[in-house]
């Protein structure tokens, strides 16, 4: 049986991917932060599933999870590690605290790197075994930085960079590292955004920030089904000759080709107008 470790399985892409992989005959270790989430998943998937409870900001929890998986594998190699879990820190970058920046990167960048290190031996396997693969789920925000998603976009862009160096440094061990880049996904990060709204009242960014939240809530029903990303993750894990990255935009032309093709200064103006970030908005206050 092929075994996969995947992080962030309590909701969204992670939750969908657990089912997707179980349906295709995998045994899945799903990482969650609370016992409650673990129990819910246990009840939903009585077979081919085992939860791992730890927080990505704690190294000890990560190390303990490796021991648990190793015991379960009992000499079999680990087929894949999927770094999917992410947090979203949102707000105007001019007022972002260092604490918030740290938290964003601890979860989205340092955590996944730490997992790559911790699961390295299990992925490498023993002499004669086929080494496993790593799949890092990043985001199109890493390519197209939207206002008020500064910390999130930067943490994902950093992970994109690490994806290259990981792939190059793990190459001699036969461990391939593949990136999956989702665009907007239904029931995705929007659910995690809601609490950031009023924190920046009283700053010059109060109105643009509120506008941003409103449009995010309006857009919550739009986007890809999480299963589309699960499919890309499955391909990355199983394809005989995988690409180095799979980009899955929600709208191929409008959401990906156009913004990465147009001059950046032009996009600045479009976004500035949309999000009330042009200097004239400040003057008119």
């Amino acid at each position: 049986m092929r075994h996969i470790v995947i992080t962030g399985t309590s909701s969204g892409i992670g939750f969908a991917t657990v089912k997707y992989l179980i349906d295709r005959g995998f045994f899945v270790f799903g990482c969650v932060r609370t016992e409650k989430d673990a129990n819910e998943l246990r009840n939903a998937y009585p077979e081919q599933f085992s939860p791992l409870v730890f927080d990505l900001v704690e190294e000890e929890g990560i190390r303990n999870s490796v021991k648990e998986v190793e015991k379960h594998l009992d000499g079999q190699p680990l087929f894949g590690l999927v770094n999917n879990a992410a947090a979203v820190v949102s707000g105007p970058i001019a007022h972002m605290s260092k604490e918030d920046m740290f938290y964003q990167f601890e979860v989205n960048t340092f955590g996944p790197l730490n997992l790559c290190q911790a699961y390295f031996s299990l992925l490498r396997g023993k002499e004669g075994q086929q080494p496993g693969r790593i799949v890092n789920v990043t985001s199109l925000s890493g390519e197209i930085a939207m206002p008020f998603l500064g910390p999130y976009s930067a943490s994902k862009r950093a992970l994109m960079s690490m994806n290259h160096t990981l792939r190059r440094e793990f190459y001699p061990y036969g461990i391939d590292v593949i990136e999956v880049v989702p665009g907007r996904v239904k029931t995705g990060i929007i659910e995690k955004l809601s609490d950031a709204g009023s924190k920046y009242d009283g700053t010059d960014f109060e109105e643009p920030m509120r506008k941003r939240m409103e449009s995010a809530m309006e857009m919550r029903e739009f986007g890809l089904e999480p299963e589309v990303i699960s499919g890309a993750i499955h391909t990355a894990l199983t394809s005989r000759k995988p690409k180095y990255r799979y980009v899955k935009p929600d709208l191929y032309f409008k959401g990906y080709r156009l913004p990465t093709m147009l001059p950046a200064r032009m996009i600045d103006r479009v976004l500035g107008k949309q999000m009330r970030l042009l200097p004239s908005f400040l003057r008119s206050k």
Partner: protein
Amino acid sequence: MKHILITGVSSGIGYTSAKYFIEKGFHVFGSVRKEADAQRVKSELGDSITPLLFDVVDEAAIAKAVEMAKAKLGPDENLAGLIANAGIHIPGPILHLSRDDMRNQFEVNVFGALSVIQAFVPLMRKTESQKPGRVIHVSSTSAAIPLPYSSLYAATKSAMHSLCDTLRRELMLYEIDVIDIYVGPVKNDMVSKVSIYAERYKDTDYYHSITARLENALKNTIPKGLTEREVAKVLHDTLEKAKPKHRFAVNKDWFNTWFLPNILPIRLLDKILAKKLQLRPEDFAANKAK
């Protein structure tokens, strides 16, 4: 009088740029971490530099420096530019780097750079007679082409790439422009600093490969690099230009270190790099057998 702030002026690009801007008639606020460096820089560069004593990771010290700079600026004067130059490079194979290495690398190059920008933005707003200031981030070509053993450094520069985009878009409100410059290899003493680190990985599989990478840098990359003065000129021209590009690369060996790696299919580039840096499975096996 035009004022700018340059972080990390004790040596390297920061020092040379401070000197260059002074020659062009600027008054420079230059950040240094040590009192001794503050005095040295002052005695070498004269009255046109005001050393600011702060480490980019120390928010309280940055706040004090802002007050100092504010007192020095005349009424109706602002900061014409902020050059976010200070940075560190923690090299090594990812497998053997610690979470604290990650934290340190990002705290200086990303969170620290952001703290400085946040703190000095109020001084860059336009005044009655002066245009709004510009932020220039000194990045690296490794943001586009991340090389083995520079993973954390490259990742911080990529994170800053994204943050520069966000800053540029959000600071439009204040008409403060943000420019991200990918600087290629520079002829300086960085390599002698990093060569010591190879010994730390003597007992790992990566040792021979790290040595190969360093030798390649010493023999090929560094001698063909830019001079610090050339970089300083680019920074100055970018600040003075009416319509600067939001992002660009400055590079000497443009074809080999920029064009080629950016145009080759990634999987092919991986193979070329692996061969050059002895990072193939057969290299590791051969080294083990030795």
